[in-house]
């Protein structure tokens, strides 16, 4: 009789503990997420959400809507426009001077003036493009770092919400993607853009090399596009399959618990569902906040690259109007380099956003 009472007491205590569990779990997970990402969250995002403590809560996430992203994009545009205008003025001024120098009819002086003009335009452009390549490389490094930190958080939340197979499979494919992209960014981005720049510079003297630059650019973007598509397909399909496997597995466990363990089996099953519900919401909030962070960090760089590209495009067109073919060709090539840099940054960002959306949208298995 005493043994029966003991069993009943243990059952009651266990049930009360299970009822309290979801709240504690959510609080602990939020704390863990904050600790993992605290160094990587931009100050503006934390501020907009109402502080770091409120960032991964429902109220905090509500503050980070489309309006916030548009406001950040507007701020980035405002910050980027002044330096880009200054760069355009510099390039346009140089084009004007080169145009004035082109009016010299002395055949012996004109090539030397043309050489000085080419050198100055090339050096000025190099300084500009080098700054942008450094910023793009730093951004990609930040993005891979952020996604590596998110990988841990995603694994944790997936495991807690009963998606053990998703945590293992999608986590490993994410890790593979991150390694591939990190290596591309580290060993290919800067050397490739610099090689294209050097070829563009040489092609101002010999226009025949322009085709090689275009070939390298097209080949690289095609290969990168293919790799991105492959990685996205692998992550997407593995995630879908793993989700089904998780769901199937958890249903079997819940059915077994509910059928074979009397009384407590059903309670455990319901408690697990409650936990999963809470964690599922936390997962959605984390995914959404992750997408917002990715956008807030990437948008200023993309806007700046776009504006700089427009400045070079305008300068190239002005040079063409003045009939300075060499300067027009060179500036046009630099514009194409900006196209490549924009493509690379956008591809990396899209890839990470895709993974975050998959994570946020994935349903809990319980």
């Amino acid at each position, binding site marked *: 009789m005493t043994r029966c009472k003991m069993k009943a007491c243990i059952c009651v205590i266990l049930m009360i503990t299970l009822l309290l569990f979801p709240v504690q779990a959510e609080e602990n997970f939020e704390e863990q997420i904050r600790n993992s990402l605290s160094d990587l969250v931009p100050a503006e995002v934390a501020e907009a959400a109402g502080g770091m403590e409120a960032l991964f809560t429902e109220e905090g996430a509500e503050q980070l809507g489309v309006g916030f992203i548009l406001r950040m994009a507007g701020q980035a545009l405002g910050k980027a426009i002044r*330096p880009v*205008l*200054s*760069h355009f*003025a*510099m390039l*346009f*001024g*140089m084009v*004007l*001077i*080169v145009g*004035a*120098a082109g009016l*010299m*009819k*002395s055949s*012996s*002086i*004109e090539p*030397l*003036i043309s*050489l*000085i*003009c080419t*050198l*100055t335009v*090339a*050096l*000025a452009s*190099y*300084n*500009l493009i080098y700054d942008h390549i450094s910023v793009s490389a730093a951004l990609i490094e930040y993005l891979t770092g952020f996604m590596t930190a998110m990988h841990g958080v995603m694994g944790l939340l997936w495991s807690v919400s009963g998606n053990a197979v998703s945590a293992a499979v999608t986590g490993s494919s994410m890790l593979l993607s991150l390694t591939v992209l990190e290596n591309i960014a580290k060993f290919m981005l800067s050397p490739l853009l*610099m090689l294209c720049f*050097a070829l563009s510079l040489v092609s101002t003297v010999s226009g025949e090399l322009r085709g090689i630059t275009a070939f390298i650019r097209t080949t690289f973007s095609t290969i990168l596009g293919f790799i991105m598509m492959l990685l996205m397909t692998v992550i997407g399909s593995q995630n879908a399959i793993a989700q089904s496997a998780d769901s199937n597995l958890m249903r079997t466990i819940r059915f077994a618990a509910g059928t074979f363990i009397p009384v407590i089996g059903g309670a455990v099953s319901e408690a697990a569902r409650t936990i999963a519900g809470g964690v599922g919401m936390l997962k959605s909030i984390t995914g959404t906040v992750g997408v917002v962070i990715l956008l807030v960090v990437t948008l200023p760089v993309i806007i700046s690259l776009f504006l700089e590209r427009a400045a070079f495009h305008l300068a190239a067109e002005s040079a063409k109007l003045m009939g300075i073919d060499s300067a027009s060709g060179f500036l046009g090539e630099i514009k194409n380099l900006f196209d490549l840099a924009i493509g690379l940054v956008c591809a990396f960002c899209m890839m990470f956003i895709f993974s975050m959306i998959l994570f946020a949208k994935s349903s809990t298995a319980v």
Partner: protein
Amino acid sequence: MDLVKYAGIALTVLSFLLLIKQIKPEIAPLVSLSASVIFMTAAAANLLPTVEFLAGYADGAMGDYYSYLLKALGIGMIVQTAADICTDAGEGALASKIELLGRAELLLLALPLLKELLTTAEGMIK
């Protein structure tokens, strides 16, 4: 309308030169030189405000490249004007020497730029 004024001056100087060449041909190059100096100064005065306005927008470090371009443009204008006057005066040899001097000056001007470009190329290879 400065352009109309300068076009008028050019036509007056031309008529004057045609007359002088018949009366006193030895001073014709001097008149031509004076007119060239006036026109060069006017051209520089017209070009400078635009360049200064654009240079004001450009960054400090980037604006340094302007000085190279302006110097090259100035050297080119001076050398060409001097060489043209010498050629008009029938001193072709002197004109070619002035052009040679101008080329040397331009090469000297291009030297720091070439050095910077080579340093950049070295940095790229490293």
